[in-house]
């Protein structure tokens, strides 16, 4: 059973557009929700993360929106650039249990 469901699987966005990736979870004990960016041949790298006590977190062009009642969170990439082309993973974690559960990934392609 997949703990974190991510959509879409792939996404094509024009340069300057907004990329939106969605994730949903079932376990209400999850209390930490990071997003990772992975370039081909590299390990994932933390992009931005949120705790459920806030509904939104913004860092530069990247924003996480969090809806606790719906058990959903999403990543918005504003003014998308070709250099943002990568695979993005959402994840969820129950802080005291040290176990991260990852979504299946979204391959983003930003066209120039």
């Amino acid at each position: 059973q997949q703990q974190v469901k991510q959509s879409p699987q792939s996404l094509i966005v024009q340069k300057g557009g907004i990329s939106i990736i969605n994730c949903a979870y079932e376990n209400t004990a999850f209390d930490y929700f990071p997003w990772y960016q992975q370039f081909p041949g590299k390990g994932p790298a933390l992009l931005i993360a949120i705790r459920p006590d806030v509904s939104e977190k913004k860092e530069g062009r990247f924003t996480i929106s969090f809806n606790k009642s719906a058990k959903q969170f999403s990543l918005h990439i504003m003014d998308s650039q070709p250099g943002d082309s990568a695979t993005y993973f959402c994840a969820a974690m129950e802080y005291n249990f040290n176990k991260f559960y990852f979504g299946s990934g979204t391959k983003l392609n930003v066209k120039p």
Partner: protein
Amino acid sequence: NAGVTQTPKFRILKIGQSMTLQCTQDMNHNYMYWYRQDPGMGLKLIYYSVGAGITDKGEVPNGYNVSRSTTEDFPLRLELAAPSQTSVYFCASSSSAGGMDTQYFGPGTRLTVL
């Protein structure tokens, strides 16, 4: 700092062979993790460690073993390799339980079992 290093980068095993994937971090992190990433899938946690001498199972531990004798090293052992273990393996470390801290990932080991 080299961060998290993994060796080897690539390996081909025959069914039934064994091998150890090496992982070393030089950031003095207490927490270390092993994940596998199958094509088109997210990462699945195999084992993790909260400090030297302490390890615990993750989501998919069957067919693997780990040890943590030092803070720096967290090797992953595959016994009796099977085709289902063909995957890319990532090691990661963090200084805390990931709550407010970054998990740093190594570059990965691509393993094929034939």
